[in-house]
Structures are given as structure tokens and as C-alpha cells.
């Protein structure tokens, strides 16, 4: 607490950077996140040890739960080559497909938050946007009948994106027009979405029966699955990858994307360069909301086929963690979403096999966020030289006003 509490951040002089070129850059960009994940897992192991379980056993179960076990694969291939029977093979790949199923909404939701970060906006309302997207696509999915799939499915997907986009655009507009901070407004929009869905699920959108859930969507609105039941991997995953590429293209290859990144880097500079800062706020929040809406859409049309209460719980914070971990870069976001998809999906097995509550993943996740946000800690632990300041984690800007 003395005056020496803060040491000046060390910056490597440009001429002395040992690792030049793209490979060095990628290495630098991946180093801190990789070490953050490693440190998070190590502390998670300590927590597992502290509750009297074997961390190796637990992480083994985690691995088996997310990737499957080698002997199942061998057995599956043997049966397949011996008799052409794919059932054993499908059982072997089941864990991997489930992990990819869990990854799909994470990619969309984290892209949403990452896009906001790129424009200097903190979209903490992914949870509400996911829910609105899910409700809208479910509504189009079950209420319209008799359409062919090639019309119905895109319509339902667009409805989901639109629902999320509206929910994101409102805070964006309020920020642009009145300077109202998007963190508070997206939180408020979350609550409004929860209450609205409570009402919809108990009234206008309730399926017959007493449970507060929507009816199942029509088969024509479902995202087709790759494998027979119970494997749930569907085109939603491919869509997520495609959208991630689109966001990358939009951010880094278009004029609008350049404007957005300029606004994020320095709103004042962007304003002096003649860019319309407020329009970008509205636009980015609308697109971000739409992306989050697609997360709900992919889950509803591809996996669940209906919406119930608490549908989107957890996506809000998870997506923030993932966007930070992916350094707000669409490809980084896909990698981090894969990591957490596999972790979450494997944790279910870890819970049943090793008796470790699934919530350990949240702890690891939170720790990773801290380490990513404070690269100084990671550098301090592993004695790494400081990287240039421009690569630091994102900064928010107070409450606005």
C-alpha cells in the first residue's frame, strides 16, 4: 500500500524484440493464454486435492468424458472393419461429438462479446440475447407449419438472430444517443428478457401441459444432424465456424470493421478521423446481439428443439471468459470455445466418475479470466518478459456518461 505499490510496466524496446515475424507474434499471442489455462488447471488440481480426491484420476475422467477412451475407439474400428457395423464406432465418438455440441453456442456467444470488446463495448447481456434468440427462433420454428425446410430453417435462424439483435441494439442505441452505460443497460435487458420469457413460457408460448416450455419446433426447422440418435452433432457447429470466419472477415477485411476497431482503440481519434462513433456503437451492439441470438438459435434448432426456463443461464459470464481468453479474435474465440466445450462436456463424466462437482470448471474458468486480465501475474509467476502494451487485455471505460 506504499507509494511503490505500482511499478512501471516494462516494455521491451522495439529493436530488442527477440522473436520477430508472424510465428513469433502468434507464439507471443498464445503464450499468456496458454499459461493462464495451465495455471487455472493447476489451481483446479489443488482444489481437487484439497477435497481429498486424486487430481490425476479426475482429469483423466475429464479427458475421457470429452474425447472418449482409446479402447472404445479400437473396439469400434475393429467391429467396423470386421462386420461393417458402425454402432460401436458411433459410441466411441459420442463424447467428442457431445463436446462439439457444447462448443457450438459458446462460439456464437463468445463472438458476440468479442465483437463488442473490439469496439470498446462490454456486452454483459449475452444471456438475455441468447434467450431472446432462442425464443424467437422457437416461435418461428413451431408456429409455422407446412413450409419446406429450405425456407423454414433459414427463416427460423434469421428470426433468432433478429431477436438477439433487437435486444443488443437497444443498449447500443441508449449508449449512442444518451451515453447510458451498456454494462448496466445490458444487465437490465437481461432481467427484462428473463421476466418476458417467464410470462411467455407460462402463457402465449406454452406447450399443452403444465410445464413452462414451448412446443417442439417442426422437423422442417431443425438443423440437420450428422449422425443417427443419440449423437446430437448438427450443422449448427459448421454454421458457427462459418460465422466466426465471417466475423473475422468483417473485422479485419472491411472498411466498417476497420472503423469499429478504430473506435475501440480510441473513440476520440476515430471521431477526429471523421468516423461516426455513435453509429458504430449501435451497429456493433446489434450485430453482437444477433450473434448471441444465434447461440440460442443453434441450441434450440439443433439440440433441444424447445425452450424452457433457465435456458440461457451461464452463457453471459462464460462468453465473457471465452472472449477474453480468445483475445477478442474470432479464431482465438473458436479455440477457447472448443477448450471450454470440451471441459464442460467432460466435467459431466468427471462428476459421475470421480465425484468432483461440475462447478470446478467455473472456478478454473474464473481463474483463467483473472490471469488473462492480469498478464502481469502470469509474467510474474513464469518470469516472462513483458509484451508490448498493445497486446494487453481490453479495457472498459467506467460507467460512461
Amino acid at each position: 500500500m506504499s507509494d511503490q505499490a505500482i511499478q512501471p510496466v516494462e516494455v521491451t524496446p522495439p529493436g530488442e524484440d527477440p522473436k520477430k515475424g508472424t510465428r513469433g507474434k502468434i507464439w507471443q499471442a498464445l503464450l499468456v493464454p496458454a499459461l493462464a489455462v495451465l495455471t487455472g488447471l493447476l489451481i483446479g488440481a489443488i482444489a481437487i486435492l484439497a477435497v481429498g480426491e486424486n487430481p490425476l484420476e479426475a482429469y483423466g475422467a475429464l479427458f475421457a468424458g470429452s474425447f472418449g477412451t482409446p479402447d472404445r475407439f479400437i473396439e469400434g474400428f475393429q467391429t467396423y472393419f470386421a462386420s461393417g457395423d458402425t454402432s460401436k464406432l458411433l459410441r466411441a465418438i459420442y463424447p467428442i461429438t457431445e463436446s462439439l455440441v457444447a462448443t457450438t453456442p459458446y462460439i456464437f456467444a463468445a463472438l458476440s462479446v468479442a465483437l463488442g470488446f473490439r469496439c470498446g463495448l462490454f456486452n454483459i447481456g449475452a444471456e438475455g440475447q441468447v434467450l431472446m434468440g432462442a425464443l424467437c427462433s422457437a416461435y418461428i420454428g413451431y408456429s409455422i407449419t407446412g413450409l419446406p425446410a429450405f425456407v423454414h430453417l433459414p427463416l427460423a435462424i434469421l428470426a433468432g438472430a433478429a431477436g438477439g439483435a433487437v435486444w443488443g441494439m437497444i443498449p447500443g442505441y441508449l449508449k449512442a444517443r444518451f451515453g447510458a452505460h451498456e454494462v448496466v443497460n445490458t444487465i437490465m435487458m437481461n432481467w427484462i428478457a428473463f421476466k418476458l420469457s417467464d410470462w411467455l413460457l407460462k402463457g402465449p408460448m406454452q406447450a399443452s401441459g403444465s410445464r413452462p416450455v414451448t412446443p417442439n419446433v417442426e422437423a422442417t426447422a431443425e438443423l440437420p444432424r450428422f449422425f443417427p440418435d443419440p449423437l446430437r452433432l448438427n450443422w449448427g457447429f459448421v454454421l458457427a465456424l462459418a460465422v466466426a470466419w465471417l466475423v473475422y472477415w468483417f473485422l479485419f477485411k472491411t472498411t466498417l470493421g476497420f472503423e469499429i476497431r478504430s473506435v475501440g482503440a480510441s473513440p476520440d481519434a476515430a471521431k477526429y478521423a471523421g468516423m461516426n462513433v455513435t453509429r458504430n456503437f449501435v451497429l456493433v451492439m446489434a450485430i453482437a446481439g444477433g450473434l448471441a441470438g444465434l447461440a440460442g438459435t443453434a441450441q434450440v434448432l439443433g439440440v433441444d428443439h424447445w425452450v424452457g426456463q433457465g435456458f440461457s443461464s451461464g452463457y453471459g459470464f462464460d462468453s465473457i471468459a471465452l472472449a477474453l481468453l480468445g483475445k477478442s479474435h474470432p479464431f482465438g474465440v473458436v479455440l477457447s470455445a472448443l477448450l471450454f466445450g470440451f471441459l464442460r462436456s467432460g466435467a459431466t463424466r468427471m462428476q459421475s466418475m470421480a465425484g468432483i462437482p461440475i462447478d470446478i470448471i467455473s472456478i478454473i474458468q474464473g481463474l483463467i479470466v483473472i490471469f488473462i486480465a492480469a498478464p502481469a501475474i502470469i509474467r510474474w509467476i513464469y518470469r516472462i518478459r513483458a509484451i508490448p502494451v498493445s497486446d494487453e487485455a481490453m479495457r472498459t471505460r467506467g460507467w460512461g456518461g
Partner: protein
Amino acid sequence: MNTATHEIETIAFRRTRSTYGLVLLGFGLFIFLVFGLNTPAGVFTTFGTNLAGSQAITISDLVVPSQATIFAMAAIAAFFGAFQLARGIRSTGWLAGVIAITFIVSFLTWAAADKSFNLTGMLSSSLVRATPIALAALCGVISERSAVINIGIEGIMLLSAQVAVVTATVIGNSYLGLVCAILFGGLVAAFHAWLVIRFKVDQVVSGVAINIVGAGVTAFISSRFLAANINGLNNAAVFPTISIPLLSQIPILGPVLFENNIIVFLTILLVLALHILLFYTPWGLRTRAVGEHPKAADTLGVNVFFVRYVNVILGGMIAGLGGAYFTIGSVGRFDEMMTAGKGFIGLAAMIFGKWNPLGAYTSSMIFGFADSLQVKLQILRTPIPSEFLLMAPYLITMLVLTGVIGRAIPPAADGQPYEKQ
């Protein structure tokens, strides 16, 4: 120059004056059409004024003719609207107050027409439900006045709630559990302060991380330990209701204000204490200076980092008290995610209350009122779904942020790390 600014001000004032006037007139019409015409004539609304089991002197219930009351409220709103159009009232707080009071009174009269509605009971439960929100808001006020945003209040409250109930159950004394919760809240906040001051971690990101870890740790401990041993770990005595002698016998006010448990009393005391501390003591002056212009404060010899550490930790202790409310202050056991977003609503109340302890408490009361109203309305079975009423506080917060009902301006340096030169 001076006359020009004056003129601009007058024009702006005239414009808001006519806007507010029309809004109020429209509001009066709204009350008349929606509530007034939907209430049958000759029906009475009974407002209960006595609370079962309280020590207050029993008085007779308030019985009013439903339709006449609603018409009166519509007339009041319309009168103020017309007055505003003709003359203009400079205080927007007044106008918001007129809107709020006429709306609430006419709404309740309409909802409880031909029925009985316990007013005292609802005020009492509003105050109780406002308590955790107010504590979260006070935590926000105290740390943001020194320019440190703490969005991790939810996580701190969740952790403290669990610490409170576990220590209270194991030790067998709820007051010790309360102390542990407060200390633990301070500890988590100290970690937040360390991250944002020492490592200059983005304050919002650090808060989000605390929320994630808080949710994870409490859920982990809950499903691993508490679920298996409820009686040994998760079953504490709830604080008894304390009745202040004499004062608790006042009708209406007595049961609402003077018959509560220790956390509610502590909250009221804290609000007053923080108000005095912030605005009438050297510590408060230093805090506000650090929050508005840290460099100037530093130049004048205030230790910016020290003030921030102290305020954030104090805030965490207040949030710890708020966490204890959820378990040993109300139900005596811990459930996963039991804070249910109250920390975030507290932040909204803080902004709504313009970073003032008294304002934050008043806005928390609005959220608490809406919360308890929802429960009562489910009993009364009104045609409006309760979910829509529950949205009201969030909508109001968003309106406040747009500056329609007065502008909320945060401390100037809020959220910025300080770099000593």
C-alpha cells in the same frame, strides 16, 4: 456570452417544461382510462394497517371508495401537468414523485378494489427485501466514490452468504457467522483491490472474474459438502426479530421500521453513517477527491492507493453483511445462486441514487417495493401479469440512465487506474 448561455438554458428549460407537462397530463388520462374506468362504482378498497404479531397499537384499517380515489389521483396528476405547462417546476424529482405516488396509489386501489390489502405488511416486506439491494448499492457507492468499480458484488455476496451460514452452523452462533461473513467480504474485496490497483487489471473484468469464481466456488462447496451434511454445515439459526421498545408501538411505522432483525437495523445505521462520513468528514473529502481528481488529491498529499484500498475493502465488508442477510438473515441455509442478481440490482440502485448513500437506499426501496408488490399481486390476482410489473424497476433504471429523470453522473475518475508519476 452570459446572456446567450442564459437564453439557451431558458429554451432548454421551456422545452423540458412542456414535455413534462404533457407527460403528466397524459399520465392523468392514463390513470383515468385504465384504472378509473375499470373500477366499478360504489366499491371500497381496504388498506390493512395492522400487522399480525406486531407490538404496534392496533388502529382501524383505511377504507377508501375505490373509484373516487382513482379519479382523485388522475386529477392530481392532471393538475400538476397543467401547472407545469403554465408555470413550470424546476425540480424533476418532484415530478417523478408525483408520477410515482399517483401511479402506485391508483394502481393499488384498483388492484384491491372490493378486497383488502395489507399496506403495513407490504411496506415492511419492502424494507426487508430492499436490505440486500441497499447493502450492495452501499458497497458500490463507497468503492466508486474512490473511483474503483466493483461489479463483483454479486460474487462477494454469494461467497459471504455461504461463509456466514457455514461458520454460524459450525460455531453455533449466528453473530459470529455475521462477523466471519463481513471479514470474508472484506478479504475478497481486498483481492479485487489488489488486482486493480497493483496489477491494473481492468476493474470490470476483475469484477466479472470474482462473480464467476464466486458462483463456482459456492456451487462446488455446496454440492460437495453442504448437500451431504445439511444439519452439520448448512442449518443455522436465523437472527431473531428485535423490537425497539416504545418506538415499535407506533402504528404502521413501528412494525415497518422498528421491528426487524439486526441486519436491517445495521443497514439503516450504515446509510446514515456513510452519508455523514462521505460528506462531513476529512475521510469523505479525501475519498471524493480521489474519485474525482486523483492527481490533484495526490498533489495535496492524499495517498490515492491507500484511500482506494480502504474504501474497496470497506465496501467488501458491507457486501459481506449483505451476503449474510441471504442466509442467517432470512432462511438459515445456503442455496446455490441464492443472491439471484441482487448484487447487480444494487449497482443499478447505486446509479439510480446518483452515488449517494441516501439516494442509493431510496432507490433500493423502490426495487424492494416492486419485489414485494409482485408477491402480493399474485395473491390479489390482477389481470396484469406480475412479470410485467417486475420489469418496471429495470425499465425505470434504463430510463434514469438516459437522463430523462435527472442525470446520473459518476465520479469523474471512476474506473480508471491511477498511475503515480
